[in-house]
């Protein structure tokens, strides 16, 4: 049925392949595999997920679920306090690792380990260290003080703090590494000139290091916040969201709903996280496009 149609078309304008150079045809062919992956496993899931989350009833259900409010607050604490502490330590340590010493070079090789090894065994290792009866920490507390140590993961505040600590342990090396490269890119002449002028340690940081690293530091902080929103392992493997579902973050909450077969609720909880994500993405885009 399309014979005449396509025939007319061919007369009016040459077929697509003859208008493109062979290089361009290859360009499209070579880009196609990724485009297919992107459409099938990013675009489709995102659109489908948003469609699933469309019913207002989901949001009413979420609003009435005390676990959701708690998870939102926990997420905020995780991001605002946890990430800023992590990035400040990374900034500090980047100065330490930039020192030219053989032993510091060796230490930096060891320091990268938490990032190089998978998180599951190490987080579980921490989990057992915090075990109130058998864990090494409470054994040490007992042998020094004669008192029983606290039941670490049974207190929501302590448990969440520990989850943040685990997250910092895991991702600190990565961000320190990035900040070290930023620091090493600063011209050494500046520091020598400051040395001659008798600048203090703080003045050197305030007037040389910080101005040249500011953009990188803030970009890293924003990126880390976006990625930490998706940090499932640190919380799930350490506390499992417990005690009494009080240490969930939005990342583990979505998966929890999913495991309970409440997919639309899971998607709705993620849509509710958008107020966290979108400002971060907006600032990030603005920074990157500058």
């Amino acid at each position: 049925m399309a014979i005449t149609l396509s025939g007319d078309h061919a007369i009016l304008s040459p077929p697509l392949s003859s208008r493109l150079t062979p290089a361009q045809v290859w360009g499209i062919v070579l880009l196609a595999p990724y485009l297919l992956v992107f459409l099938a496993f990013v675009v489709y899931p995102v659109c489908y997920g948003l469609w699933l989350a469309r019913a207002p009833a989901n949001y009413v259900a979420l609003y009435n679920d005390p676990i959701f409010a708690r998870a939102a607050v926990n997420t905020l604490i995780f991001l605002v306090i946890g990430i800023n502490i992590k990035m400040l330590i990374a900034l500090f340590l980047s100065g330490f690792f930039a020192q030219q010493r053989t032993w510091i070079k060796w230490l930096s090789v060891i320091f990268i380990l938490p990032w190089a090894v998978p998180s599951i065994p190490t987080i579980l290792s921490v989990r057992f260290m915090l075990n109130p009866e058998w864990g090494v920490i409470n054994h040490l507390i007992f042998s020094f003080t004669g008192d029983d140590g606290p039941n670490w993961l049974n207190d929501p505040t302590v448990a969440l703090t520990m989850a943040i600590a685990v997250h910092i342990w895991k991702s600190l090396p990565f961000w320190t590494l990035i900040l070290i490269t930023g620091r090493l890119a600063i011209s050494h002449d500046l520091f020598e000139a400051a040395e001659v002028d008798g600048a203090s340690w703080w003045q050197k940081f305030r007037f040389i290091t910080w101005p040249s690293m500011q953009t990188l530091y803030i970009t890293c902080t924003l990126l880390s916040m976006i990625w930490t929103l998706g940090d499932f392992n640190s919380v799930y493997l350490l506390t499992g969201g417990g005690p009494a579902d009080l240490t969930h973050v939005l990342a583990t909450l979505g998966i929890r709903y999913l495991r309970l077969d409440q997919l639309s609720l899971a998607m709705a909880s993620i849509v509710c996280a958008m107020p966290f994500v979108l400002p971060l993405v907006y600032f990030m885009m603005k920074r990157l496009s500058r």
Partner: protein
Amino acid sequence: MKLPTLREVATEARLLLIGIPVFIWTMVPIYHMFLFAISPKEDAFSGKLWPDHPTLHNFEIVFKQQHYFLRDFYVQFWNSLVIAASVGVLTLFIATAAAFSISRLKVPGGRIVMNLALFTYFIPAAFLAVPMYRTMGNYGLLNNHWALILAMVTIASPYAIWVLKQASDKLPVELDEAAVMDGATTLQIFRLVYLPLMMPSLVAIGTYAVLLAWNEYLYAFLLLSNDREITLPVALGNFLAADDSPWELLMTTGFIYALPPAAIYYAFRRYMVGGLTAGAVKS
């Protein structure tokens, strides 16, 4: 004359004051894991900092699959290996083709595709996991290795394309032009000029994708569930299902599981750090 040396000592002491806590902080969870792996159960559970009778018995149990939780150890290890290798190969193929197309062939719309790809990273991983799970269900891939492979390729590709594009932008255009003059076809340029010059970046990206897939827990845990289909990290997570988990065996298996990525990371560290930080300084 004594003063500068004193100052040097003070500086060194201050550096040590930072270095020692950093060392302890880094090593404690890893040492604790290692300690469990070489301890008999009684020693591990009594909070000793070094076992009275260090032993390799735990490794023997794991390698002989002599425990309920470990009965599919080799199958699961193999699953992890096959999935990681497949993700590495597929990511390399897809990302190299895309980077060549965007950077060398200047395909129209190439830059937009790359920016869209990078946008994937603004969706936190655990958030994408929820619709991804359902999508894999719709495609009929749940509990199939392909589900995890394709999910990990999706996550690894944008970064891979970005790094490879960055690297291939640095190759001189004259190379392609000279090859075209000599009558080379696009595919010949790709195979004979482009691929050999890109080798260092390809090694870095291949390693990155393999490690990403080997280390992945969340997607593996969602997309695979059958005991003989799951990867090692999921099996480790399943240890927690029991109240009286054999933690010394869990830590031993975890130690075995953590060794290959650590070894690969250190073997390719030079490439990894170079490739990783190339973009960081620019921003």
